[in-house]
């Protein structure tokens, strides 16, 4: 099928509108309200063009392309209509471009230049709109709004949380939140990008610089396992702002607020500015050479066997590779990155953290099961993909300890105590084993005897429904990032694996860290070398290393609160001979545990590679040179290797390291074979106490985000504890008071109580969003609640 635009013939597919055909063929049609990711509104009337045979101008955005129709985008009728619209748009626009953040990248400015009049004929008063406070991330200047409603449609269609609306009518129409509230969507910042004028601005960079003074560098987000592509705008060797970089395979044109605003942490007061060493019991700043000298004398042969090194799963592939290389060269085999995991009972069955399908394919999935995943807050981009699947009529189910707020609807949402999560999954396996009994393709697959032993006859209707939905073709099981703290995390992964085999569905574990796959591939594990080769000298895992009270601990890009059991860690560090930290940030309290701290460049100041959840290797360059006296991780680690006499040349540079990693790991990928060993699982115990649930606040997941000031001002109900009424009554809590005392381990805290029926029975829901909560310990541990 063909249409003619400006006398040229173009092909089009059924259902396409004229603007789509024009865009595809590089014909410029001005527009404000039209956005190819949003529904058509046809309200700005900027894209009016001439359709031959119709005397009125037609909006190109909503006019369907029709066989053999002819259109003109630059005829007198079209040009006049566009000029008229432009004049109308500008009469109430303040024209304050010199003081507007959008100036220089403003669609209104550009199109006024191309299609506007030289001078306005409007002499009357202009409309002024009161700016509403919609939270710490977006600064509004609604007088500049041209009512294109892109932000309104974004909220309804993409973010899935209807927060903005057009209130009032006519000239008095105002875009605002329905009630005077803050915008809470975890990907609200995208509204700033799609706003064609300066009505919605990024608050942290508001009035701080001009677009044309910035330099743009492409980078990769470091705060979740998605690996969103983003552009970093640099001004004067520091990050000015972060915007999305289009990548249809991963993040399309969106990024989460966490990725957008985390840069504010770069110059946080906690930043380690110079190497710090403990001299005579006092921490003082030293020169780099002095620090290396101390390390050389302290980390020495006699202690190698009694040393352990932990690295963050958010560090780059290069850092992880060099870290384990350095330690293994000096015979330190106690290497681990799984610091938030508590038990390691099934090491040999554990598998590589990966989503079985590309991220883009999630939207084509027909059925999804979420296991204790607060995905909308924790991985907003993936949640957006699930929302797309939901809008495609996929069935979404969830099994969780708290009824999380998703931006899609669930079919079945089963609230359970995390204690019985293993049992629940075994129930699902039991049901599946019955319904798939005649499936010949599964003949060679045996459900381990130890799991069969726990079959006990099914009664729960919800479980049957959830299991049936998984049998739909193209289904997906997702283990939420909360589960990393679950005592049976490894067993859960195994059970999900069995479920995925039985239902032929895909599976994926969502990590809070951006490079957990990298940590596996580079061998930051006690039992795996780089390239996932089994190690001959298996070391201790993180939990054993801490329990063993070793002589030397090395912490790379990790804060103590990242560890599952940080109180135990603290005592081990206190008793250790030497503790080395290679950190970007340090708090005054944590500093006391270290003997030497080396200042590490943040992810913005260093080049690197992240491997995301779909196993996509994405490299990025340095945005700005390291601030203060900090150095890039790869330089520090290379130097440490040299300090310990590694036989690498002094001239080794970043490219050499990349090549080395490419040849050893990337081009030589070994996918972990499914273990052939007979699985034996411990007896499943049913415990009878309250369980703490609720993961980390999504703005408290890593050392950078924790220090992003604006993000942490977002209202996320801090310091609240949620328990349902039944549980409170069973524990004899006085419901008239709104405070209770919670006790976890040795710690105790007075907190505000919220009665919330979204919490499962016998659970106490707390979001880790400040240090006090972290000191309590991690989730899925026993907890006690008491009256004040």
């Amino acid at each position, binding site marked *: 099928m063909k249409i003619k635009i400006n006398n040229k013939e173009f092909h089009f597919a059924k259902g396409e509108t004229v603007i789509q055909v024009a865009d595809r063929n590089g014909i410029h049609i001005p527009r404000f309200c039209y956005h190819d990711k949003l529904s*058509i509104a*046809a*309200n*700005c*009337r*900027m894209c*009016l063009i001439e359709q031959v045979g119709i*005397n*009125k*101008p037609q*909006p190109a955005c*909503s*006019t*369907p392309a029709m066989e053999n129709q002819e259109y003109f985008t630059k005829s007198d009728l079209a040009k006049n*209509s566009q000029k*008229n*619209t432009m*004049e*109308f*748009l500008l*009469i*109430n626009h303040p024209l304050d471009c010199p003081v507007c953040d959008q100036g220089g990248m403003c669609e209104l400015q550009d199109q006024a230049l191309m299609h506007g009049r030289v001078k306005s*004929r*409007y002499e*009357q*008063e202009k409309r002024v709109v009161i700016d509403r406070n919609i939270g710490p991330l977006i600064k509004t200047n609604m007088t500049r709004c*041209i*009512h294109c409603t892109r932000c309104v449609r974004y909220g309804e269609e993409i973010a899935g949380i209807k927060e903005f609306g*057009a209130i*009032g*009518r*006519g*000239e*008095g*129409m105002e875009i605002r939140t329905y009630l005077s509230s803050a915008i809470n969507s975890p990907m609200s910042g995208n509204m700033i990008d799609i706003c064609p004028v300066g009505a919605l601005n990024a608050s942290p960079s508001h009035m701080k610089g001009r677009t044309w003074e910035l330099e743009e560098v492409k980078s990769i987000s470091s705060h979740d396992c998605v690996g969103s592509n983003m552009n970093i705008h640099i001004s004067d060797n520091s990050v000015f702002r972060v915007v999305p970089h289009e990548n249809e395979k991963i993040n399309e044109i969106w990024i989460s607020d966490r990725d957008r605003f985390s840069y504010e942490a770069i110059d946080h007061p906690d930043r380690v500015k110079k190497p710090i060493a403990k001299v005579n019991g006092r921490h003082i700043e030293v020169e780099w050479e002095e620090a290396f000298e101390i390390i050389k004398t302290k980390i020495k042969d006699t202690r190698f066997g009694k040393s352990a090194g932990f690295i963050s799963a958010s560090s780059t592939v290069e850092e992880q590779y060099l870290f384990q290389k350095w330690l293994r060269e000096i015979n330190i085999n106690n290497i681990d990155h799984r610091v938030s995991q508590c038990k390691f009972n099934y090491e040999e069955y554990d598998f590589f953290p990966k989503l079985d399908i590309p991220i883009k394919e999630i939207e084509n999935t027909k059925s999804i099961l979420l296991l204790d995943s607060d995905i909308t807050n924790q991985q907003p981009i993936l949640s957006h993909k699930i929302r797309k699947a939901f809008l495609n009529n996929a069935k979404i189910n969830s099994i969780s300890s708290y009824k999380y707020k998703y931006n899609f609807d669930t079919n079945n949402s089963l609230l359970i105590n995390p204690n019985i999560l293993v049992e629940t999954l075994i129930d699902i396996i039991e049901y599946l084993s019955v319904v798939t009994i005649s499936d010949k393709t599964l003949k060679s697959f045996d459900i381990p005897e130890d799991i069969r032993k726990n079959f006990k006859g099914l009664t729960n209707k919800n479980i049957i429904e959830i299991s049936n939905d998984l049998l739909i073709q193209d289904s997906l099981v997702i283990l939420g990032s909360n589960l990393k703290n679950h005592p049976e995390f490894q067993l859960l992964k195994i059970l999900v694996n069995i479920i995925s085999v039985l239902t032929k569905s895909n599976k994926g574990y969502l990590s809070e860290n951006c490079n957990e796959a990298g940590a596996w591939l580079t061998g930051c594990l006690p039992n795996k070398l780089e390239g996932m080769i089994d190690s001959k000298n298996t070391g201790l895992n993180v939990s054993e290393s801490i329990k063993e009270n070793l002589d030397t601990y090395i912490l790379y890009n990790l804060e103590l609160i990242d560890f599952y059991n940080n109180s135990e860690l603290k005592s081990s560090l206190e008793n250790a001979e030497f503790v080395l930290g290679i950190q970007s940030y340090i708090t005054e309290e944590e500093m006391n545990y270290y003997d030497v701290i080396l200042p590490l460049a943040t992810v913005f100041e260093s080049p690197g590679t992240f491997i995301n959840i779909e196993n996509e290797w994405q490299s990025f360059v340095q945005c700005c040179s390291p601030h203060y006296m900090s150095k890039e991780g790869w330089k520090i680690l290379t130097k440490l290797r040299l300090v310990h006499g590694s036989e690498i040349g002094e001239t080794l540079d970043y490219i050499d390291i990349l090549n080395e990693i490419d040849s050893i790991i990337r081009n030589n990928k070994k996918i972990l074979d499914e273990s052939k060993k007979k699985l034996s699982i411990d007896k499943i115990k049913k415990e009878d106490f309250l369980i703490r649930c609720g993961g980390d606040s999504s703005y408290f997941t890593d050392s950078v985000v924790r220090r992003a000031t604006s993000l942490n001002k977002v209202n996320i109900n801090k310091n609240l504890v949620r328990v349902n009424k039944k549980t409170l009554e069973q524990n004899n809590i006085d419901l008239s008071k709104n405070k209770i005392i919670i006790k976890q381990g040795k710690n105790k805290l007075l907190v505000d109580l919220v009665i919330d029926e979204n919490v499962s029975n016998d659970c106490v829901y707390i979001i880790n969003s400040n240090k006090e909560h972290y000191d309590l310990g991690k989730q899925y541990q026993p907890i006690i609640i008491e009256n004040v």
Partner: protein
Amino acid sequence: MTDNLRLNELCYSTLSSNNPNTYDTYIKLGGYETWKNILLNKLSKQEIIDTVIDSGLRGRGGAGFSTGRKWSFINQDSTDTKYLVCNADESEPGTCKDRDILRYNPHALIEGMLIASYAIGAETAYCYLRGEFIDDVYTSFKNALKDAYDNKLVGKNILKSDINIDIHDLIGAGAYIVGEETAMLESIEGKKGFPRYKPPFPALKGLFGCPTIINNVETLASVPKILDNGSNWFKSVGTEASPGFKCFSVSGHVNKPGNYEIPLGTSFETLLDLAGGMKNGKNLKAVIPGGSSVPVLPGDIMMKTNMDYESIANAGSLLGSGAVIVMDETTNMVEVIHRIARFYYSESCGQCTPCREGTGWMYKVIDKIIKGHGTLDDIKTLESIPKMISGSTICALGDAAAMPVESFINHYRHEFLSYIKKENKVENSNAKSNLYNNKEFVLHKK
């Protein structure tokens, strides 16, 4: 002249009875016979649509589109749910004809809705009344609907014919724009009354995304009698292109303002006579023949014009909803347009740019002129804004706001000029140079 005129024969036919809006009155006058006949004889849908097409009945809401043809746009083979919506959001300033149908002959509307629903294959019909009707008008319609339900003429399995048609009444919240058919659909769906862009047209994708027909109250109330008496009866009055009767709401400087249902093609002079002639014997100055959104016509032109779609169009205006606003020689036309412009400024929904910004601009310019601050340039600007709005908006409100302004300047330019003081009668280029000579301005610039 008015003696032989056939008055109030169709929609206002119950007015001659004592209790015009009761069920009994309507039955006594032969009401619901058409509907019962359709049910009993299972008349084919096509037959009904053909009769309506043949009668030449045109939409009485203002656009004047053939009602039968509109119904025929519904794809009868489609399995989609279909809806009928009756537009009783009569908000056009000057118009009050539907109000009186709802008040005095609600059963004709209900019967018309039933027939129309049957003809298009809808099982659900909505009657959307304007918010201001909440008192007696709404009550009258609601009571009539209850009577119709009680007599099993509406609802499930009507008179054991296996035909189900439900009629729901809805009351708006007082926005002019909801009278626009697609805005009404949005409002029925519970959303803000914003007109939808077309295509897709409601006959394809209307209420809740299903095929929908939207008709005016008067149109639907005319249907039963047309089917009852045959299309030839309807065609026997009126002109060839505009057959039948039409309700006119005459208001303004006349002795007997009110609703008059007369054959189309009757001369304006007759209608004026019917309305008791000019008040206080003043001379006729101007007439807005079809509601505030159509162009104004000077009295002398109107006196030569007949009241039908074509004659009024030839005279340079539109029949619209049939609201005839009569103005005598004492009327200040600038004040009139000031008031009309304010109405559209306040009623523009704000969805699309030209109307949202243009209605305000026009009002503000007229306001400036009326306050004595206008210049010749302002009149030029005021002339150009309607041209910029017309044809470029989503719905017809833009045109509705533009047409009166354009026509008022066209016909009464001298009155606008009289507001412009002598010192203001300078072209803007001079005004600009004055500005630059102003010391204060220069100081400020520094």
